[in-house]
């Protein structure tokens, strides 16, 4: 089932939580809402579910305008970040509860619950209470309850955020498989760009209550339409700076300069913005050289993340090799000018060198 938001806004008191939003989510595959905390992911989901009523605008599904329809009458399931299960019901009753309310026969319920239980490896825990389960199993129970109904719209609000690393990876790999055959529209909120890339499908980048961009996940990563979109879709934060363009040269501060790509040469001279992904800034090699004053260098086993001050901007270098620096140390870093994304003063993407969208950026590219 597709779901469409038409000119939806949401206000609480005088405070705007969601600015005017138009969004059409198609069935099949994952639709990811990507944004930091307070960007409006949860609010947007609550609007789709019908838990909140939009201040203005309409929400359409294949059944027509559902804006005012109570949640009980909609075909929606939702899984929250916190593990929400009915504490007084056993795992079996938890999963069976939406079917019981729907008035299914005992045997039909049993068959469905066992099917979902097997799928999510919950069958051995059927007689336990949610409080007797691990966090991962609790969230599996919540997922099972969302799946068993066979709803056409499934909302997953950062379902893996409260799980530990190992469980998160395990469940994340399972998720696309679980929803693959259901034909449901899955909306998945996350604040982690990597998670979005792994789940694939379509992504909407959100910032402060605005949908910045919506499209295929991979193409948004490669070609963010605006600076905000590039910022949301990067972890660690993307390196940005204001450059001065003169003729065919770009100047960053007084010392750094490089040739701009052909598409930019014809544009008027003046200030532009650039964005450079942290893993495109390297501690060694060939390219445009910048001097950074190192603020902190973190070593994460096989790689390092170095934060530095470059011409008054905080930049981050993410590298796969080990480099240690002292605080305040002046060091030379390089980047390939082809990897720069250029934005106008209005934060809109101007043009990007085709080679910056290298396939190596995408983990799990087969899924996309």
């Amino acid at each position, binding site marked *: 089932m597709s779901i469409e938001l038409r000119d939806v806004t949401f206000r609480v008191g005088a405070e705007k939580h969601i600015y005017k939003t138009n969004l059409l989510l198609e069935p099949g595959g994952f639709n990811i809402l990507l944004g930091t905390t307070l960007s409006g992911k949860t609010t947007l989901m609550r609007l789709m579910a019908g*838990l909140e009523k939009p201040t203005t605008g309409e929400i359409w599904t294949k059944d027509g305008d559902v804006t005012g329809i109570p949640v*009980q009458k909609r075909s929606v399931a939702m899984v929250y970040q916190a593990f929400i299960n*009915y504490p007084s019901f056993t795992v079996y009753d938890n999963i069976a509860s939406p079917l019981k309310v729907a008035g299914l026969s005992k045997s039909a319920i049993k068959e469905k619950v066992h099917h979902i239980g097997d799928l999510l490896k919950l069958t051995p825990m059927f007689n336990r209470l949610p409080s007797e389960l691990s966090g991962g199993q609790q969230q599996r129970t919540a997922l099972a309850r969302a799946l068993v109904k066979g709803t056409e719209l499934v909302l997953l609000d950062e379902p893996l955020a409260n799980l530990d690393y190992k469980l998160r990876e395990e469940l994340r790999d399972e998720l696309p498989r679980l929803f693959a055959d259901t034909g449901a529209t899955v909306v998945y909120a996350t604040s982690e760009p990597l998670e979005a890339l792994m789940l694939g499908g379509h992504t909407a980048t959100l910032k402060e209550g605005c949908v910045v961009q919506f499209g295929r996940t991979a193409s948004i990563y490669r070609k963010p339409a605006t600076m905000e979109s590039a910022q949301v879709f990067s972890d660690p934060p993307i390196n940005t700076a204001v450059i001065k363009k003169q003729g065919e040269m770009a100047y960053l501060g007084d010392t750094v300069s490089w040739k701009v790509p052909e598409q930019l040469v014809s544009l008027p001279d003046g200030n532009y913005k650039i964005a450079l992904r942290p893993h495109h800034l390297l501690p060694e090699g060939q390219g445009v050289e910048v001097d950074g004053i190192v603020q902190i260098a973190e070593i994460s086993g096989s790689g390092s993340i170095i934060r530095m001050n470059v011409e008054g901007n905080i930049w981050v270098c993410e590298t796969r090799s080990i480099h240690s620096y002292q605080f305040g140390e002046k060091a030379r870093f390089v980047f390939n000018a082809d990897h720069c994304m250029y934005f106008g003063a209005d934060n809109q993407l101007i043009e990007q060198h085709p080679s910056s969208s290298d396939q190596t950026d995408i983990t799990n590219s087969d899924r996309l």
Partner: protein
Amino acid sequence: MIHPRKWLVPALYILFLMLPIYGLLAMSFKTTGEILGGFSFFPQQFTLANYKVIFTDPTWYNGYINSIIYVVINTVISVSVALPAAYAFSRYRFLGDKHLFFWLLTNRMAPPAVFALPFFQLYSAIGLFDTHIAVALAHCLFNIPLTVWILEGFMSGIPKELDETAYLDGYSFSRFFIRIFIPTIAAGIGVAMFFCFMYSWVELLLAKTLTSVDAKPIAATMTRTASSSGYELGLLAAAGSLTIIPGAVVIYFVRNYIAKGFALGRV
């Protein structure tokens, strides 16, 4: 090895706590003559006569029955009224909600004596004087606010997402409230019922003022220290001992929940 002082302090504490109760219990097995005659730690002439009187004389055992009736009525009314109120306070924001919530508590700030006279006049006027419901309603004045506070604490500990999940699963509000929400806060209801019971069971002034014969509570009966046959201290001690039992039974059932209530800071 356990250090000897580790159990010494609790042991002494319990000993001092139990001493007066033991005194009462010992007295209940003595005759009034022995009690008045002097102090003895154990009953010299062990007797069950005091208990026999209580279980055979209607003026005594009716006291217990009356008390239990109005305590049960009061507990049922308090909890059933407080459940929706506490739900509203914990889940909705409305004009003056915080003030109203605090105002509930101020009802407990006035001593019951303040209300005794107006209640007496009101209940007499509408023909409720000397009925169980009269005492039960009067005690609601103190028990409903307390119950709302306790239940609100427990309910606020339940995430709102639970309600929403139930609605998304198709539950109507009433079905959700009865099938899911009430079992979820069962501990809180237990604690609230315990406090209603305890307050109503020991409260004397209102219960005595609003009753004369038909609904006379045991506490009022016990204030009768002397009868035509003189002092009846043994009988009083037996009545007192029996009065402790219901409280002890209730505490036994809710002891684990009470700790939870304390942890929430609402008891």
